[in-house]
Every structure is written in C-alpha cells, then in structure tokens.
C-alpha cells in the first residue's frame, strides 16, 4: 500500500526532485547519449560495412567496450573530472561519457552488419546505373538497412545510477 | 477439397502404373513394393502428391496403402522410416560427416552404430564416391556429390519404397546426365520401387518405366510408358509437352545401334606423318586413335600439317557406344565432320563407323514395326 501511496502522492510527482522531473532527466540523458553515440558509431559502421576494412578491429573493439565495467569507469571519471567542474557537470559529464561508450559498440556493429548484409546485386545495380560510390551507399544501402540499425538504438539500456550530490 | 484429394491420389497411383500400384477407386490408392518399378510424375501438384505418400502432407480424405496397409493407420514415424526420401538440394545434415549422414537412416531404423557406418561406407562406394569423401562435411562437396550422398542416405535403411522429389534438377546438365546414368545402373542392381517427380520431360522419358503427366490443376493427362507417350500422346497438352523433337526423342526407344551395319574405319596414331595419314585416309577426313584404339578426333587432310597432333584434331564428332539407342548413333553421324558416326565398344575402343544411309535404312526397317508396336 505504501507503493500506491507513494505513486499517488502529488508531492512526489512535481518539483525539481519529482518523478516527472526525473523522467525528463532520464529521457534527456538517453537522447543526448543516443545522438552522440550515433554520431560516432554510425559513420564508423557505414565505413566498415561499405569498404569491408577493419571488420576484426570493429568486432574486437565492440566486445572490449562491452566488457568495460561501467560502474568502475564512472567512478574513475568522477574522480578525474571532479576537480575540473564546480557545477553539477562534475557528475553529468562522466555519466554521459560512460553511457556513450556503452552505446557506441552495438550501434557500430549493427550498422556494419546491416550494410554488409545488403544484397550485393542491389549494390551492383546501383553502380551499374552510374550512381557514385558514396551516393550508392546512401541511395541503396542506407534505406535498405535503416530498419536493422534502429532496433539496436532501441536496445540501448540507459542504466540509472544514484545521483550523488 | 475432396475432389482435389481424390485427384491427387489418382496421380500417385497413376505414377506407379499397372503392376505396383493401382487406384482401386478414385479415393483409394494401393502401392505395392514387391516389384521394382520406377514411376515418374511430371507437371503440376506433383510435390504435394509425393508428400502425401509419407504423410508430410495429410490427405484430408481418401486413402493410400502400402502393401495392403493403409498409411493413415500406421505410426507416421515408422511409415517414414520405411520410405526413402530424396529431395532437390539433398538436404544433408551440415553438422555430420558424409558417412554419418548416410548412416542416419540406418541408425533410425535401429541398426547399431558400427553396422550402420559399415553400410554407409559400402553405399558411398556404390553411388560412385570414394572412401576419401567419408569424413568430409557436406559443404566440402559439390552439388552433384551432395546429391549422391542424399541418394545413399535414402538407401541406407534399405527401404521398400523410395520417393524422389526433383532429385537431379539443382545440378548442371553434365552432372545431371551422369547422375541419371548412375541412377539407372543403381536401379538395375537394387530394384526398388521408386516414385520420382520431375519437370524435365527428357529425364522422365529416360528414367521412368511409367510416366504420368499431370495438367495444370493436377488432373491426370496421361499415364503410359515413355514409348507410348511419344508415339501416342493422349491429347494436345501431352503432345505439346513432349515437344517438337518427339520424333527425334523417339529414337531413344527405337532399338539400338547394334542393328546397324558398321564399316571398319582406317585410323592413324598421333605423330603419324602427313603422307601416312593420306595413304590411310578414305577421303578428306581420317580418324586418329590412341594406343588403345580409342578414338581421339578427326584429322583434316585439307589443312597443312606435317605430323598428326592432338591440338590439330577436329573434336566435333560425338561417340556412340555399342548398345546405346539409335538416338546416340544418329547424333554421332550428324556431328562427325566426315559424315561417318563413330561407334565404340563398352571400353571406348573403336568398333567401326556408320553412315547416315545405314542408320536411316535401319530406321526405315524398324519404323513400321516399332511405331506399330507402340499402338495399344
């Protein structure tokens, strides 16, 4: 019953520490993380998928990043960044760095896998129609694979850590 | 639905024809596995018909019985273990070696592992693959080799009845011909009741002793021996399907080259001088043979040369072996640049040559008799 009491207490929803504010904050972290991680992981994935160069590097890197203990990294960054900021940013920046590091590998690998899995015949056809190399990537490969890249973004789990003040 | 099922059951029966299967009514089919027979179904709804026999598809009505036993009353797994099944791309198990693949069916019918593996090795040899293939995995084999393994696997449990669903259609024409020839040889050795589905009319005519032709929609157009199908197509559908070349195809059934009078052919060996070749020749062309009297190709005396060499030979002529149908001999005659078709014995050694005139006289003699025989 305490659970519902908590849930229906208007006090708990509003205000700078309320559920709504926390939701917004959570969503904000998620979106910023996704944008940064997408900006890093997506071009890498496209490049590797398109040229076939550095496949082992990407796969190895992705797995190594997955193994990075997020908590350890967060603590490390908080201690290292602490002296650099006086505001809340002392916690926000390390969190974002960790979240981006966690989000990059899946975006990179699924983009790579998606681009590499495009039917080579469709790519040949695009080349045959005299669409340039980079144009062919965006006109034939990109639309064909959008769908496989985005679930990976969706899979991203933004873990919530206790905010330390 | 009932009508369709009944029709399909009739197809199954029709495919086996008289001796081994009969439709006791439009809704009951009996398959006997006691006598060896190859039935071939071609054209529509064929795969469905085949799968009804081992109940991969269940007929919603009607009945199929094997050796008097209705299949719908049997345990479906036991039924399938009694029936060999070969499909288009072989469907081998990628995670098992070739011998393990072959041994699978024997293992399923309760044979011990060492015994099953021994059988598998024997069968591997039988389908024309050497022991070096035994421990390879399917991906290390060509399409034709996989198909041979697929046939061996179906045979390993010594089934009474074999179903083959377009077994040779996924391989290239050269391999397909090899597989078909081996199929005929194998069938002479083992004598199983086989029902095969194909969309290739030549394959049906070559392999089947009863061929059922089905129309679009699955109704039976005609069931007959290959010879009858060519000589007496039941209607325009069958006539169109057996094709424009049916006169030529019929030569495949119009007796063998043995009846044709052969003329001995002068030959030269590789390395012979131009004068030796000219002395031996009957005209512009002279046949070159190797040390075992096996024909190599024709030497053109109108072209300048000093010695007969392998790379100077004209290779356009095909060879016809003794015992092959007239179709092969006629082809040899038509393709030889000298106009003389080369006939060899079973070991490939030269027996002599035949001219178009000699072939056509045999055809003329035989024609009236053969075409008359094909009449019902």
């Amino acid at each position, binding site marked *: 019953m305490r659970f519902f009491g908590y849930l229906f207490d208007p006090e708990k929803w509003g205000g700078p520490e309320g559920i709504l504010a926390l939701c917004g904050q959570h969503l904000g972290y998620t979106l910023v993380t996704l944008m940064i991680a997408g900006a890093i992981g997506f071009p890498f994935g496209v490049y590797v998928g398109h040229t076939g160069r550095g496949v082992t590097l990407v796969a190895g890197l992705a*797995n*190594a990043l*997955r*193994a*990075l*203990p*997020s*908590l*350890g*990294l967060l*603590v*490390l960054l*908080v*201690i*290292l960044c602490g002296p650099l900021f006086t505001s809340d940013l002392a916690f926000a920046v390390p969190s974002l760095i960790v979240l981006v590091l966690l989000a990059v590998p899946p975006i990179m690998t699924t983009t790579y896998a998606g681009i590499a899995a495009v039917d080579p015949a469709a790519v040949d056809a695009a080349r045959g129609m005299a669409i340039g190399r980079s144009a062919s990537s965006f006109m034939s490969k990109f639309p064909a694979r959008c769908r496989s890249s985005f679930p990976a973004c969706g*899979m991203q*789990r933004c*873990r*919530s*850590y*206790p905010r330390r003040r | 639905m009932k009508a369709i099922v009944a029709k399909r059951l009739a197809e199954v029966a029709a495919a086996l024809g008289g001796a081994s299967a009969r439709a006791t009514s439009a809704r009951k089919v009996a398959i006997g596995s006691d006598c060896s027979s190859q039935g071939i179904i071609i054209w529509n709804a064929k795969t469905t018909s085949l799968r009804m026999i*081992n109940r*991969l598809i269940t007929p919603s009505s009607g009945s199929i019985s094997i050796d008097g036993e209705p299949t719908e009353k049997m345990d479906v*797994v*036991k*039924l*399938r*273990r009694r*029936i060999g*099944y070969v*499909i*288009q*791309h*072989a*469907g*081998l*198990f*990628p*995670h*098992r*070696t070739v011998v393990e693949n072959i041994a*699978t*069916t024997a293992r*399923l*019918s309760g044979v011990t592992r060492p015994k099953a593996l021994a059988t598998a090795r024997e069968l591997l040899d039988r389908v024309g693959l050497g022991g070096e293939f035994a421990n390879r*995995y399917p*991906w290390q084999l060509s399409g034709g080799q996989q198909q041979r393994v*697929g046939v061996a*696997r*179906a045979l390993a*449990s010594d089934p009474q009845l074999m179903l083959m669903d377009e077994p040779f259609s996924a391989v290239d024409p050269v391999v397909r011909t090899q597989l078909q020839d081996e199929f005929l040889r194998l069938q002479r050795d083992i004598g199983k009741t086989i029902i095969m589905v194909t969309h290739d009319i030549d394959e049906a005519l070559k392999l089947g002793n009863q061929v059922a032709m089905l129309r679009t929609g699955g109704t039976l157009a005609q069931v007959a021996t290959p010879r009858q199908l060519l000589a007496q197509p039941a209607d325009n559908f069958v006539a169109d399907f057996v094709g424009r070349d049916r006169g030529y195809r019929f030569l495949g059934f119009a007796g063998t080259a043995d009846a044709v009078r052969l003329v001995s052919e002068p030959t030269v060996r590789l390395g012979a001088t131009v004068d030796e070749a000219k002395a031996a020749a009957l005209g512009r062309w002279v046949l070159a043979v190797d040390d075992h009297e096996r024909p190599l190709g024709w030497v053109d005396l109108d072209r300048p040369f000093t010695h007969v060499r392998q790379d100077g030979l004209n290779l356009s002529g095909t060879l016809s072996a003794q015992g092959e149908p007239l179709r092969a001999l006629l082809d040899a005659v038509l393709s030889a640049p000298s106009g003389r078709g080369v006939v060899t014995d079973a070991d490939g050694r030269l027996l002599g040559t035949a001219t178009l005139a000699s072939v056509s006289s045999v055809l003329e003699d035989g024609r009236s008799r053969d075409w008359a025989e094909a009449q019902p």
Partner: protein
Amino acid sequence: MNLDWIIAEAGTIGTLFLWHFGLSVVPVLLSLVLAIPLGWLAHRSGFMRPFWLGLAGLFYTIPSLALFVLLPLVLHTRILDPINVVVALTIYALAMLVRTVADGLSTVSPETLQAATAMGYRPAARFLRVELPLAVPAITAGLRVAVVSNVSIVSIAALIGTPQLGSLFTQGLQLRFLTPIVTGIVLCIVLAALLDLAVVWAGFRLSPWNRSNK
C-alpha cells in the same frame, strides 16, 4: 597508481576476482538452460514470435540497480544474499539469450528440417540431434555477448554490497583513491576476455563442421 596497495591487498583482490568469476558464469549457464526451451517456444510461435522476443528484450531495460534492490522483496531473501545478484543477472542474460536461441534455430535450413522429418525423426529427437547442434554457432555468438556484458553488469552489484571486483570501485570512490578502481577495471576486462575465449573454444569444439572454423 600504488603497487604497494595491490600487493598488500592481493589476497582480498583474489577473493573478489573469484566471486566476480562465479557471479558472471553461473547466471549465464542458468539462463542458457532456460533460454533453450524458451527460445524454442518463441521460435515455434509463428506470428507471435516478434511479440515474445520483444517481451524478453524488455527485461533487459529494467535498471540493474532497481532489480538488485527489488529482488529481495520478491524472493524474500536478505538484501546481501548473492542469490539476488544471480537471479537478476540470469534475467538479463535470459533476455539476450532467448532471442539468440530463437535466431539460431531459424538459421537451420528448411530443407534440412524437411529431410529430418521425412526420414522419420520424432520431434524431440529432431530438436536435440539436428536443430540444436546446427544452432550452436549462432548461440555461441550470442553467448559471447551475454557473458562479456555480464562481467560488466556484475560490478554494479557492489552498490548493494555483494563482494566482487565492483567493490574495488566503491572503495576507491570513498577513499578518492584511483589504484583500486584501475585494478578493478583491468581485472574485469581480463576476466571478460578469458570467459570470451572459453565460449569461443567451447563453440569450436561443439561445431567441428562449421566452415568458419577452418
């Protein structure tokens, strides 16, 4: 970095490493055992397949810390009981592996399955002797991701006081001392690499037929 500290604490670090190892491996093995039947069900569920797989994936979005704290209430265990961590990590690994198993099963070609049925395999035997062995390479790939991610997630359990390498992080934060943190990170990566190798090796041994092994 302070090497003296590492040498002095070597015994404790070793214990933490072993705990971390156990907490990483046991949940993955448990979830694999559970994922095989569940993945099979999802694989066989036809048009409901995306729904079941989506539902399984949803478990992955539960914040790990929240799960660590909630589980004692659900399971009636003590808050420091490692069982909580094992159950939570099993749920995460399961969320990933159900999809892996279902995808692995769907890599088996229909022709192979049809041949197996036609030659008289019973359904259970067909699954165990044909489908599952053929799904091994795909399952291995998924298992690598699960096991490596798990090593990372285990460390979060330090926040609720379960001993493992993550304890070095909380300790380092309290003391504002970098050595234990760096040691913890390095050992986590080493452990992840070792487990990854072990999975690759097991997958290799279980699928000698796989052409990418050559």
